[in-house]
């Protein structure tokens, strides 16, 4: 009886912990194997503890160059997609124009279309235009597929925004520019930030579309894929772990800042 009661009380917590374990286990494996000293070229079996790779993360030729490129592309793609996507979202929610319905559904097309198909057709387009494959073609492609995610995130936020807030701002002597900067933008900011984070993650991660349209340029996911054919350097795990730690650290810092601000105000 007591066990049944205990189980009833804790079943939700256990389900939560199991789900968390399911999510985190791959990360744990990546982290653990970043401290491995593999025999041979493949880092698939635990041998012995070592910090060699952590002390020399750029020790594999081409790895850090590809990482830098990926970060650069992700940054510009995020900036471009967030700017354009925010404007599209505002236009779709706030204005009634011809073809608004069409834009509203077409914006989802990049999300719905199989990535491989899109990658192949983009390549066809670039080749027919005579474009040189590389940084710019990758960037254009990334902005394109990130756009829909930004639009979705920002649109949800703008739709739930009370239009009377902007009227109130105007009523309180804020001209159109002031109204946008002081009221509209701050209130839409969480949606825009969510869209931007999503865009960054998608762009940094993308392999299929990038692979088709990169020419001889190599991004980080392409580097990992390429090296996996011939042997996986431990440094890949190091980079992966570092990215994970940075992301978690950012979340923790932002939570701490938010908490402190709330406590100060109260």
């Amino acid at each position, binding site marked *: 009886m007591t066990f049944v009661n205990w189980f009833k009380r804790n079943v939700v917590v256990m389900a939560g912990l199991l789900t968390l374990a399911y999510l985190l286990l791959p990360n744990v494996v990546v982290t653990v194997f970043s401290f491995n000293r593999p025999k041979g070229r493949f880092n698939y079996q635990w041998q012995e503890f070592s910090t060699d790779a952590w002390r020399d993360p750029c020790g594999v030729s081409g790895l850090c160059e590809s990482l830098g490129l990926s970060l650069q592309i992700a940054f510009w793609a995020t900036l471009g997609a967030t700017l354009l996507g925010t404007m599209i979202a505002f236009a779709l929610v706030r204005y009634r124009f011809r073809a608004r319905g069409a834009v509203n559904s077409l914006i989802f097309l990049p999300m719905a279309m199989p990535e491989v198909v899109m990658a192949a057709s983009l390549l066809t387009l670039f080749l027919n235009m005579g474009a040189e494959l590389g940084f710019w073609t990758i960037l254009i492609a990334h902005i394109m597929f990130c756009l829909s995610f930004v639009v979705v995130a920002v649109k949800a936020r703008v739709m739930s925004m009370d239009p*009377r807030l902007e009227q109130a701002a*105007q*009523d*309180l*002597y*804020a001209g159109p520019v002031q109204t946008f900067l002081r009221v509209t933008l701050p209130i839409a900011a969480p949606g825009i930030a969510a869209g931007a984070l999503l865009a960054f993650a998608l762009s940094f991660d993308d392999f299929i579309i990038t692979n088709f349209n990169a020419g001889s340029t190599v991004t980080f996911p392409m580097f990992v894929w390429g090296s996996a054919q011939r042997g996986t350097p431990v440094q890949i795990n190091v980079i992966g772990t570092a990215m994970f730690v940075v992301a978690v650290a950012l979340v923790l810092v932002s939570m701490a800042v938010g908490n402190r601000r709330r406590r100060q105000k109260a």
Partner: protein
Amino acid sequence: MKTTEETTKAGGGDVRLTGISKTYGDFTAVHPLDLTVPEGSFFALLGASGCGKTTTLRMIAGLEEPTAGTVHLGDQDVTALPPYKRPVNTVFQSYALFPHLDIYENVAFGLRRRGIKSVKKQVEEMLELVQLGEQARKKPHQLSGGQQQRVAVARALINHPKVLLLDEPLGALDLKLRRQMQLELKRIQTEVGITFVHVTHDQEEAMTMADCVAVMNAGRVEQLGTPADLYENPRTTFVANFLGTSNFIEAEVDSTSGDDIVLKAGGGKLVLHRARASVPAATGGKILAGVRPEKISLTHADDAGEIPEGRNRITGRITESSFIGVSTQFVVDSPVCSDFEVYVQNIDRDPRLAPGAEVVLHWNPAHTFGLDAAQDIDAGVETVEEEVA
């Protein structure tokens, strides 16, 4: 208060609407309208939802562009000015407080936008006025409905507008708080002396707070006057029904003598003072005789002889009675009107006055008002209840 022709002082806080109207495609929200709100008054625009009262208010604020006509504040024509250049401020329905700013910054918003650097003293004074000094650093969602409402008022008043516009400011509050805020708003208005234009669908609210009420219906002003004037002398059935309850008797003019009009209704005669008839009475013409439920006395038929001479009287049978505490509300079936409502104060309760009893209704003829018979008797009934989304 016949205000339309009143002269205006330079730089005053009176609002003059001249021939103002608003149409959306085929739909006319506001028919051409002339209205003057005198400086320093508490003015209410009263009507059911969709009657054009909010549109009128928004045209004063500049948030809605009139299809025709002009808006003057004092001597200044503001028709072409955008909202952020008009010396008026609005308390919005559901307040529209900025969720990302704390109470202090919400109240300081208008001052800061006008480039005023040292806002501290003014903001603190204003928060004191609405008794929210303690809450300055909280976000709007951390406050109760009544507190949010007061922030909205403070945020508008701090700018010393010539006119303060209030759009259903108490609609989201529960009854008790609403009563409290009605008095609070009235106190603030008396204290600052600014012209208030208040839009509401609640007739009680309008009558409690306003010096002058404009009753609107279907995009037109039905009647304008002080609350007492509107209640005692409604000129249309809409006003008579929308403000309180009225009983109507369809009657025919029997004869006229001096200041009195004698009406024939059912088998009996009723007297109506000529000054209280809003239509000219010609012998044989139709007229609607109205009387408020609280003006009527109820006497059991057995005691009919005790009723003094010179009172209007009608016989009937009680069909319903409900005890309300201070009064008892009766519904009486009579030959001239099937559901006559009568409110009797509970001073000396007559136990014989129960459903089924034969009674005589009687009232002072001075309390009868006469309306044009060519209108819907039920106009304005029940619209008070089906309200606000």
